């Protein structure tokens, strides 16, 4: 019979704790860097948030962007951005919010169509007014805040509070650096990107929770093992799962990025980053951080006394909480 391969050998003993300090430093730098970028460079908001017009147009031959720019600049519609979209004969035209409000924006679209004429195919036309733009922005912010709180509440309910705080820190780290990546690369930040960030949030906690479950399990099993060693043990025994799950999810997202086309490129790229950073943060940040959180455990030397105390208290301590 076929003997399946073991990707991570059973006796793997990687000392993850050895890297945790440089990893902390790296993470802090990435988070701070993301904030600096956000406040200095900012995000390249798509029309979902910034308002304005986005039109995807296509013609038979490759597009001469310079000539097209000249033609459209003559319409005086403000700062027009042009970029090829996927193929050289496909162009995305973006024009900013028009001063005359929603009606002026509608007129701007008509002007562009009149100027371009019939040889173009209008694959997509999107206009978003200023009011809608700011509403979409605020609902995106609310969705993110409430999702964060919801996740924190659940993790807090299922684990000791230290775990909840750490999971949230990791989630924050993953989401902030994702947004930072968008600022750094200048990729368009739109509603789909927010969906990706929230999905990353879900994935990040998912990943963290699996290892936390293991840490808690090991804490009950190896009462005398020093915490650092125990964390290493938990990380190593879940390493195979972590690699395989991350790998498979990454594979499916890569398929999306390569074959899914331009429309969801931003989403796919965000997800790729999210999966990589989410896995990293779980292993190198969220779990090692437990070391500093003063988790209440019953230590080996006190074991007997503790057992006695626990028996008296009828197991109301913080240890045997699994399955609550």
């Amino acid at each position, binding site marked *: *019979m*076929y003997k*399946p*391969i073991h*990707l991570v050998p059973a006796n793997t003993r990687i000392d993850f704790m050895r890297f945790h300090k440089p990893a902390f430093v790296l993470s802090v730098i990435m988070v701070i860097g993301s904030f600096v970028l956000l406040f200095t460079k900012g995000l390249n908001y798509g029309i979902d948030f910034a308002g304005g017009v986005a039109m995807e147009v296509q013609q038979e031959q490759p597009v001469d962007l310079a000539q097209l720019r000249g033609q459209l600049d003559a319409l005086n519609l403000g700062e027009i951005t042009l970029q090829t979209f996927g193929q050289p004969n496909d162009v995305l035209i973006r024009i900013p919010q028009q001063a005359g409000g*929603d*009606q002026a924006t*509608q007129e701007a679209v*008509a002007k562009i*169509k009149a100027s371009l004429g019939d040889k173009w*195919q*209008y*694959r*997509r*036309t*999107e*206009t*978003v*007014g200023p*009011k*809608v733009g700011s509403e979409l922005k605020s609902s995106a912010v609310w*969705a993110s805040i*409430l*999702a964060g709180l*919801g*996740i924190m509440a659940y*993790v807090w309910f*299922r684990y000791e509070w230290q775990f909840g705080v750490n999971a949230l820190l990791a989630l924050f780290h993953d989401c902030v650096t994702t947004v930072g990546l968008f600022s750094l690369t200048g990729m368009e930040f739109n*509603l*789909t990107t*927010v*969906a990706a960030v*929230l*999905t990353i949030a*879900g994935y990040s*906690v*998912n990943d963290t*929770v*699996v290892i936390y*479950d293991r840490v808690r*399990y090991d804490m009950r099993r190896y009462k005398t093992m020093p915490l650092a060693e125990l964390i290493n043990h938990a990380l190593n*025994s879940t390493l*195979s799962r972590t690699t*395989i*799950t991350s*790998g*498979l*999810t990454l*594979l*499916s*997202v890569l*398929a*999306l990025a390569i*074959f*899914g*086309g331009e*429309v*969801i490129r931003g989403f796919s790229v965000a997800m790729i980053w999210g999966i990589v950073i989410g896995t990293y943060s779980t292993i190198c940040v969220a779990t090692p951080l437990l070391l500093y959180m003063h988790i209440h455990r019953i230590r080996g030397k006190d074991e007997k006394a503790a057992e006695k105390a626990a028996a008296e208290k009828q197991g109301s301590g913080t240890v045997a909480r*699994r*399955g609550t």
Partner: protein
Amino acid sequence: MLHFSKLKLTVILGIILLGIVFSLPNLFPRDDVEKWPSWMPRTVVSLGLDLQGGSHLLYEVDTVSLVKDRLDSVVNDIRSKLTSGATRIGYVNLGVSNGAVSLKLRDTGQIETARPLLQEATTGMDLAIASDGQVTASYSDQALKQMKQQVVEQAIEVVRKRIDATGTKEPTIIREGDDRIVVQLPGVKDPQRIKDIIGKTAKMTFQMVDENAMLTGTPAPTDVVLDVADPRTDGAQKLIVEKVPLLYGQNLVDAQQTFENGAQPVVAFKFDSVGARKFGDATSKNVGRRFAIVLDGKIISAPVIKDAILGGSGIISGNFTVQSAGDLALLLRAGALPADLHVIEERTVGADLGADSIAAGKKACVIAIVLIVVAMVVLYGLFGIFANVALLLNAVLILGALSLLGATLTFPGIAGMVLTLGMAVDANVLILERVREEMRNGRSAITAMEAGYREAQATIIDANVTHFIATCFLFYFGSGPIKGFAITLIIGIATSFFTSVYVTRLMTSVWLRRTRPKLLPL
């Protein structure tokens, strides 16, 4: 591990069967499915506008100018009521300020005479008359809300009539929030014509031209100067007309595009009985004068009255094409909008981009599935195959659930599906990794399997619940395609939990019972 109660077995198989049955209609052409007997499930996953092409328009009802118009008409009403009675009632400072109509009666002795007149003019408003003669009337928040609601509902009705008249298939017209209307037009390539038709308020009035004022060039206080829509029709750029209309568009019962002199497109209209009588009176009294046909504040034509028109029907000629005359007739039949509508968001996707997206989504989906399926077999052998069967069933269940709910599949939704497939095998990975550990700890095949499922379950639940929470907020706050993404993820989380825990367990237990292995091929 080996034992499955009959009930559990029935439920598991039942859910799988339902999933297959409900996803079935998606595999057949739509026309065939519609011929199926009614007891069979016939709902299919509907494709979002981003996939099938079409137009999504978000309109906002201009409630600000609506209220302003209402207040202005109250002011006019008060003016005519106070000055046209048997005893004239003197007032000063009549006007609108801060959303309220205010005036001051000159003679406080006339307050009681004025009260019933003012009450009549301000029906539905809060009226306050102070003892010094100061009068204010304003709408309460409640009344304003009700007014807006009514107007939005009327507007939806009118929009529906107009869109139906254009022959657009399966439009969706729904209210959103307090003062918004969502219009979705699947399959519409260029929504410009429909936007033009919806965007016109189509307030039509018939107003007499003040010929005396036209001669002197100075409008009387009861006149208003209006632009001529197409100056070529009448030669003049502007005409002076009487402020108070003779008749309104509401008096029309029918309007059709037809031809005058066999060639020129015109609109033939017909008044109701009240309109016909008024029109007959006015035309018989004003032979030789012009009357202006005004649409949304612009004069379309101003023909000279040659004879009294008693039949209640007439013709609007302007510089029409067949299409523009047809559109005007359509607008007149559907009636005027109670307030202006503005497009505040538009998303139009061409059918070929939609088709490209579907193709790209399919390709990504298939490739992701192939990669995962191969990887699972390589990594876990026989149990990888079990997991793969569960994975495919999962895809079927997602499709079935989406069909059952009549949910809309969007492009981000496809992305959600691909992502779900990647994450769905996580549960199996967790279980099987755990089983391997238990085997290393020296447990026998069956007990290791049992321990694997037992120990991994809590973790799987924790992981799924947190993911579920994040996705629910996404659903709640997301719009359009993002909602589609969230729905697919939510369904995917639920179905993948079912397939990767229960279905694989069922398969594994059957296998274990059949072969009774000492060692697991893992």
